[in-house]
């Protein structure tokens, strides 16, 4: 067999293997998060206090989006707990402390999708696992999708509004003065690779 044929055959085998492997592999990201257009915010109430609003500055997201078959899409999101910003150094230090995020021991907050279901032309329901303080619990979120284009590349805007019960993750400090419900507002834009 000529050398060029061997190369071509190898390439075909590799691409076939790639397709098969894609089915088995958990994630093959084809969209990347645009950090400049991503906001991971939270808010929480406490008795006698104004609503506390904050956000996380460091995160990483991997998206495998299949627009034709949304169920095949996968999402992985990782947030650095230390990057929390609640408005002042003193309050940030408290939120990062063992009382709440315990960021030294649990440096990341992770979400990994387990299934994606199309609910309308502009929304999907994502079921996944959220790991916070080392505790993994299922979380279902409704995601609004906004297809855009900046001319050269396709963009997908995602918006999520949900809430979690922090007690489920063992974050019991300050309860019931500090509410158990933590509201999450996540908006992000992904660029096609």
């Amino acid at each position, binding site marked *: 067999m000529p050398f060029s044929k061997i190369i071509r055959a190898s390439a075909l085998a590799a691409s076939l293997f790639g397709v098969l492997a894609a089915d088995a592999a958990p994630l093959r990201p084809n969209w990347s998060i645009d950090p400049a257009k991503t906001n991971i915010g939270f808010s929480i109430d406490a008795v006698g*206090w*104004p609503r506390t609003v904050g956000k996380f500055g460091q995160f990483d997201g991997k998206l495998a989006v299949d627009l034709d078959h949304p169920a095949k899409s996968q999402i992985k999101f990782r947030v650095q707990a230390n990057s929390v910003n609640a408005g002042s150094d003193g309050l940030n230090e408290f939120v990062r402390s063992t009382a709440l995020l315990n960021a030294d021991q649990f440096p990341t907050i992770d979400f990994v999708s387990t299934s994606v279901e199309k609910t309308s032309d502009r929304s999907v329901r994502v079921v996944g696992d959220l790991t916070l303080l080392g505790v993994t619990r299922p979380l279902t979120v409704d995601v609004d999708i906004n297809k855009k284009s900046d001319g050269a590349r396709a963009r997908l805007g995602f918006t999520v509004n949900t809430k979690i019960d922090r007690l489920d993750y063992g974050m019991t400090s300050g*309860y019931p*003065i500090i509410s158990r419900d933590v509201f999450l507002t996540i908006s992000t834009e992904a660029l096609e690779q």
Partner: protein
Amino acid sequence: MKPAEDGRRWSPATIALHWLSALTIISLLALGLIMTHAITDTAQRFDLYQVHKSLGFVALFLLACRVAARMISRTPTAFSVIAWERRAATAMHGALYLFTFVATISGWVTASATIIPVPIQFFRLFTIPNIVASNPALEKQASLVHTVATWSIIVLVAVHVLAALKHHLVDRDDTLRRMIPDGSLAR
């Protein structure tokens, strides 16, 4: 004869401690009212609470110094010849010391007993230990005592200032002047 020893003037240490305490207590009262009633941003309010706690320990330290200074230095003779005024002045000073003590200790108990475990950090330099364990019922009681003591101090300070002004402007005696550093005495 040194001014402090002439029996008419407070000692320099007492004068310095008086004005430092006045500044600290008025700052504490203002901060307390502002942080609980005027600030609508959590982070700002959180930061002001930490400053308020730190200043509370400054007030407690100054109070201990003042009591010590009162014990080791002579109290100048009162100007008033009216017995009830002399008694009222003594009672006023005692009440100010007492309520400052109650307000600072009840604040410390409140900050310690709360179930929100924010450590008491003295101006973010070092941590001051909690005086009691977390206890919501105790926090409520201590907070009430703190509020009552605080409003009592506000009333007492107002009366104290008005009395000093009355001595200065109406009686025209040296009651106020002798608490001013290097203030010349009229008689």
